[in-house]
């Protein structure tokens, strides 16, 4: 076969292959429900719980898109319809998305976001799971005790001394999102009137805890329900000026999806109030621990079984 003919043959084959791939990619039936999750363990556990609940209690098919790059990616995708559902936190909805001032009463905060989201975005907040996964400032217990730091104000005072040259040098490690959000670093420093002497190090949420435990950084914006706070003997400082709003987690779903599949409301509300801070920490730790860690979907499934929210499969 001449080269010219071979080239033509190649072009033909390539065209067919491309067409086939595009068909596979875009024409295979999409799942009924697409569930999203942010880039940390708890979101994977919650995402799997929601997914498994739907799969086991309805006829709907579910696709999981977990470990997405942050709140805005999830929220914008939800608005646009590329996601149907994900677990969001009331404080995040209030301060970060709606750009309102913080409300310290949890019920008020929940009502505020519920009303605003439905009115402005066509998104529905279902019943909260029960836990408050607030941002915290967390340090190694040993260092906190040694320096006598147990509240945010004490930390602020210490950092100011550090600025003046007399305090021990403390470094901070925060997530990219925390550094950017108004309910994050900026607002915190304004409310407590301090600034870290050295730029906080930026890192993925899952890496903060070990970094703190190992002494690579001293202060982190730990998530309250992360199991590693207890496991690594870290201590959460008290937010004495109540800067952080409550962050009660609940399923956030498109009104359009709920209208199309109304059975979802009951199914997803079965998790209402079933997860307190302690329980969520424990579940998260099962995935995050270094000794025999489990997968998020197994942890989620076992929890749902233990609560009788799904029935065990016949062996």
């Amino acid at each position, binding site marked *: 076969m*001449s*080269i*010219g003919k*071979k*080239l*033509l043959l*190649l072009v033909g084959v*390539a*065209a067919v*292959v*491309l067409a086939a*791939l*595009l068909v*596979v*990619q875009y024409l295979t039936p999409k799942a009924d429900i697409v569930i*999203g999750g942010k*880039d*940390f*363990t708890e979101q*994977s556990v919650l995402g799997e719980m929601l997914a498994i609940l739907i799969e086991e209690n309805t006829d709907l098919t579910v696709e999981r*898109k*977990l*470990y*997405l*790059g942050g709140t805005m*990616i999830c929220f*914008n*995708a939800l608005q*646009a*319809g*590329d*996601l149907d559902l994900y677990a969001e936190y009331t404080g995040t909805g209030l301060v970060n998305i709606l750009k309102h001032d913080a409300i310290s009463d949890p019920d008020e905060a929940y009502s505020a976001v519920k009303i605003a989201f439905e009115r402005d975005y066509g998104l529905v907040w279902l019943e909260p799971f029960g836990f408050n996964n607030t941002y915290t400032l967390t340090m190694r217990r040993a260092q906190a005790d040694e320096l006598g730091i147990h509240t945010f104000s004490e930390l602020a005072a210490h950092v100011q001394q550090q600025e003046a040259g007399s305090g021990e040098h403390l470094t901070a490690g925060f997530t990219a999102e925390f550094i950017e959000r108004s309910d994050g670093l900026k607002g915190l420093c304004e409310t407590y009137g301090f600034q870290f002497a050295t730029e906080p190090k930026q890192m*993925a*949420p*899952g*890496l903060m805890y*070990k970094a703190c435990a190992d002494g690579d950084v001293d202060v982190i914006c730990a998530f309250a329900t992360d199991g590693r706070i207890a496991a690594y003997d870290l201590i959460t400082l008290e937010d004495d000026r109540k800067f952080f709003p409550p962050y009660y987690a609940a399923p956030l779903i498109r009104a359009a999806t709920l209208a199309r599949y109304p059975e979802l409301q009951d199914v997803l509300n079965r998790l209402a109030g079933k997860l307190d801070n302690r329980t969520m920490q424990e579940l998260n730790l099962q*995935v*995050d621990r*270094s000794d025999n*860690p489990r*997968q998020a979907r197994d942890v989620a499934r076992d929890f749902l079984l233990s609560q009788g929210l799904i029935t065990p499969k016949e062996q």
Partner: protein
Amino acid sequence: MNAIAKFFADYGAEMLQSTREHVILTLIAVLIACAVAIPLGVLLARCRFKLLVNIVMGLASIIQPIPSLALVALTVVLFYLINGLLGIRLLATLGTGPALVALVAYALLPILRNTFIGIRQVDPTVVEVATGMGMTHRQILFSVQLPLALPFIMAGVRISTVWTIGVATLVSLVGAGGLGDLIFRGLSSYKIHLIMAGAGPAAVLALMLDWLLGRLEEWLAPSGLRNTNPQ
């Protein structure tokens, strides 16, 4: 051995699924890039308007210096902003849509530039001889220029493919799946075996595709025949 068996029992299905997603994305991106860049490269190589050539090559070159992560991020946010401006959800803000746009953009330049150089470097004497023999433009393109430019074009395609496999690990951040899913999870949870579950297949894929493309080049134009000495 038991640990390895357990590892594959736990993650095998996921690895297969992620690899499948990754391969599909990479192939679609590279094929589209070839479909655009090769004809464009040929056209530019034969074009006499220097300004036009410089403009097009310049535009394509702007994309390359943008770090791949930035390009993926830019595409997603750009689509979101465009949707906002138009007031309707025209473009997907998540998933393979924006991911493919970024991947194709990245895959274009190596193929375009190499095709251009490949055609341009063909000895004009050979083309003259072919014209003298009575060959049409199309015959000259397919029987003389492309075969002689082939090593360059294939080099571009190979570079582009290997590169795209790497960049495609980042699209996990925007919900497009792929082997990046495993890598990011492994990073966030300090589980090195998860990272390897993602990185391993990616490396193997790159090697395999590169080798396959080498075989393809051999089939198209066995080195023995690629003799530019006009007998």
